[in-house]
Structure formats: structure tokens, C-alpha cells
């Protein structure tokens, strides 16, 4: 039981660690269209890249705004840089995008009624898996050693142990 608990704790921790990682802060693609006015301030530039990596490009839905070369992504990168230079916080910039494109732009959707299953689902499945596993193991153990032999079984065992070699 204790080891089972340890496994659960470990899995939960691993899940949390994975969730902490941003979607993919990969290097921004270099194209001719890329000539964006990058803020001179390296901290602001880093913020812009980190924000872009958190946001989904709606045109090519499996890429982030930072990675995508779609025109819209280029425009939104420009928008992020402008908002940063206007002194907006990361939270305000995320809100700006959500107000226009909805929660769908977020690679990390917020926890609310419509997304509850998305967030809790894997843990629910884990729980179901543990319950099923425990039941299976319990029934197996019972079959293996807990039940005393019936009279017939004991006689059969004795006969085999006597080693007469005779088979039925």
C-alpha cells in the first residue's frame, strides 16, 4: 500500500513538472518576413518570445505564434512587441489575445467549468486504473493462497505427492 502511494505521488509530481514547461520556446523561424522591430531591450525581447510561445497560431493550429510563419502570426508577434513597449504586463497581453481570439489561443487553457474534464480527466483515469488494479490484484491473491484447500483437493495433492506415477 505504501509503495502504491509513493507511485501516485511520483506520477503527480512528474505530471506537474511536465505542465510547468512552456509549449515550446523553440527558436523563432527566420524568414524574409521576419524583419520585426525587436525591442532593443533584451529582457523585453525575451518576454516577447516567451509570450509568443504560449499562444497558438489560429491559422496553422499546431504551431505557436512564435514558430509560425503565417501572416497572422507575424502580425500578432508585432502586436505583442508593441504591447510590451507600451508597458503592458504579460497578463494584460494574454488577456488582449483572449479577448479577441478566445481561450483557444492559449496552449494552457484556464481551469473552468468547460475545461474541467480536460484538466481532471487524466487524474480520474489514473484513479480508475488504480482501483481496477487493486481489485484484480486482491482477487488474484485470494485465489492463490488465502483459500484453504477443499478435502478433494487435499486428497489429490497427497496422491500426487505420494509419487505413484499413476495418472488417471
Amino acid at each position: 500500500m505504501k509503495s502504491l502511494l509513493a507511485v501516485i505521488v511520483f506520477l503527480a509530481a512528474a505530471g506537474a513538472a511536465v505542465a510547468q514547461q512552456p509549449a515550446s520556446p523553440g527558436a523563432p523561424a527566420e524568414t524574409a518576413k521576419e524583419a520585426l522591430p525587436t525591442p532593443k531591450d533584451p529582457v523585453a525581447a525575451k518576454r516577447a518570445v516567451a509570450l509568443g510561445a504560449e499562444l497558438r497560431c489560429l491559422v496553422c493550429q499546431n504551431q505557436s505564434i512564435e514558430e509560425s510563419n503565417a501572416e497572422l502570426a507575424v502580425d500578432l508577434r508585432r502586436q505583442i512587441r508593441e504591447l510590451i513597449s507600451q508597458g503592458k504586463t504579460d497578463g494584460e497581453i494574454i488577456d488582449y489575445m483572449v479577448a479577441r481570439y478566445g481561450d483557444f489561443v492559449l496552449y494552457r487553457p484556464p481551469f473552468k467549468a468547460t475545461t474541467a474534464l480536460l484538466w481532471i480527466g487524466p487524474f480520474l483515469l489514473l484513479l480508475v486504473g488504480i482501483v481496477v488494479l487493486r481489485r484484480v490484484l486482491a482477487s488474484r491473491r485470494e485465489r492463490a493462497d488465502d483459500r484453504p484447500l477443499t478435502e478433494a483437493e487435499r486428497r489429490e495433492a497427497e496422491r500426487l505427492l505420494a509419487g505413484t506415477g499413476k495418472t488417471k
Partner: protein
Amino acid sequence: MKRALVFAIPLAIFVVLALFLLRGLGLNPREVPSPLIGKPAPQFQLKQLADPAVAFSGKDMAGKVWLLNVWASWCVACREEHPLLVEVARKNLVPIVGLNYKDEPADAKAWLKQFGDPYSLSVTDRDGRVGIDFGVYGVPETFLIDKAGVIRLKQIGPITPEAWEKKIMPMVRELEKA
């Protein structure tokens, strides 16, 4: 009893999964619901395509039910819905304002000449900023805006005759009564 369960549970899981996947087949992942529906249309002021000296603002349409149609001469799907828009304009069903999105004005004007101009007027959004405010991500897109300036409906992609008959026109009629 137990044996029956061993078969029934995986079967039930399979059926549920299959239903979800079947539903997923019918959904279009490109149609992302807009958070702007039910909210006031973003304010904007842009130059008119026909005469850049004249500005147009969304407020100029206050008190009217109108469509804001996002289009561009480079947009292939726009050609698909264009005959429908021309027809709507000919019948005078509802005013359509064109948001010429990230386009060259010269190309845009040539395009209207070639395919017909269904717009009460078009405004130019050359760098796509107003488009971003409206959450535009795939041209064509069409917004139905009511008398109070609230966005009531968004059509992503070309307006199909079916969408027009079943969704857009009924709502236009309803909003005009209000």
C-alpha cells in the same frame, strides 16, 4: 455475472469513445468560436477604399443592422461567397461594409470592378490591425452587427447559401424588428 461484466465494460468504453470520435469527425477545428459574440463591436476608424480622404468609423452605422465582411483580392474563398453578397446587395436586404484586409488598394479596386461591388463602402485595413481587434484569422469572415453596435453572429469562411438562409437572414430580420 462477472464474466458478463468483463465483456460489457470494454464494450461500453469502446462505444463511448467511438461516439466521441464520430462527433469529432463532423466538427471543423478551424471554426473557433469568437469571444466577441454578444459584445460591442471593436471601435475602429479607417480610410475608405473608394476615397482615402474620407474616414469611416463603425459608429457611423449606429441604429442599423449591418454586416461587416472581411475580404481581400488575394483571398480565393472570397470569390466563392461574392456572388451571394452581390445578390444580397441587389435585393437591398442588409447593408454590407467591406473590410479590405491586408490588401493593396489598387488590387482591391480592380477586384471589385471585375466581380462587382456589393459593399455600401469598403474600408482599408492595410496592416491588419482592425482585423486583429475583430479576431480575424481566416478571410473571408463576416460579422452581423445590431443596431446597438453589438456583434450577434460571426461567419467564418465563405457564406454558404445555406448559412445565409438558415442563420444570417433570419437573424437580420429578427434584429431589424427590435
